[in-house]
């Protein structure tokens, strides 16, 4: 019973790691060059500061997720994992929120500021970034579940262990 629980947790951590890795790769490799008449527009993720923040934050968490996968069960570092889980989950939430805000402006535009949506001009770039952000959302939800579980395992706040 405990063994299946452990495998389940390991799978969940692996899912979180692969979701962050996938979103980093998809957003980083999304660029499209469109040219009409004599003007050529290139859409890259580095054009926007929010997407750069998104990629940097998710890469840090990918490395962290990879390292935690190899932590043995009885190590004392699980206390540190609780604290780091909290910090990295908050970082992930902040970065996905920022990226979603800018992506929403790119998709719908902003009439009041006179900003036109760009998704009509670079549809492939738009679709790739949407896919990367969706993977990022899955990663955030998985990390929230993992954070709650770490707190429960290490601290037992609901007093479910009978000693």
């Amino acid at each position: 019973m405990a063994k299946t629980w452990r495998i389940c947790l390991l799978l969940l951590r692996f899912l979180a790691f692969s979701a962050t890795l996938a979103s980093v790769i998809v957003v980083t490799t999304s660029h499209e060059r469109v040219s009409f008449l004599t003007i050529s527009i290139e859409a890259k993720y580095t054009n926007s500061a929010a997407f750069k923040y998104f990629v940097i934050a998710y890469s840090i968490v990918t490395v962290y997720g990879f390292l935690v996968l190899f932590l043995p069960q009885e190590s004392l570092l699980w206390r540190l994992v609780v604290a780091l889980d909290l910090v990295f989950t908050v970082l992930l939430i902040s970065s996905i929120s920022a990226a979603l805000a800018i992506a929403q402006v790119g998709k719908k535009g902003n009439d009041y500021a006179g900003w036109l949506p760009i998704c009509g001009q670079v549809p492939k770039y738009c679709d790739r970034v949407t896919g990367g952000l969706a993977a990022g959302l899955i990663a955030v939800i998985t990390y929230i579940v993992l954070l709650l579980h770490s707190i429960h395992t290490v601290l037992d706040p609901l007093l479910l262990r009978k000693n």
Partner: protein
Amino acid sequence: MASANGDKVELGFNIVTVTKQKKDWILLSLRVVAFLATASATIVMATNKQTKSLVVATIGTTPISVTLTAKFSHTPAFVFFVVANGCASLHNLAMIAMDMLGAKFDCKGLRFALIAILDLMAVALASAGDGAATFMSELGKNGNSHARWDKICDKFEPYCNRGGIALITSFIGNVLLLIITVMSIIKVLKQNRLNHVGP
């Protein structure tokens, strides 16, 4: 093993002892400051509005003017910012009230756990709101030449300044909320150690 005159009876399972606890003034004052920070960020951003009228043409002798407004509700990111900071300030208010008025409620020993979990949720919400509003205002300040989006801060400077103040105050509230969350989680750890349920 039941003690004869003590007030702690040990039955088959653990009972949490509700001892008289020293009031934690540091946590309470941090919560008050965080409440003030998030509440002022909400109010400053919610009342952020600027109207400007420009003369676009002159027909004969009468000038035609166009009125442009900049409101926070024009941008979904700022609406989310206001809502998130409003929720965080309500949470802080509820925690202050619980600390000052409801010291006797223990919720079957789950009091500290509930406070820690609610603090976690508040910090997550506040950081999401901050992240979205930061990059939105950076876009408004610098524009984006690649997407042909002009900056708006040179035309609506007081609006931008007020938004910046709200953002800074919200950052302060967010950092304080993070410190409060860590302190709440440590309290849970101490409570568990006290009741012989340890990791």
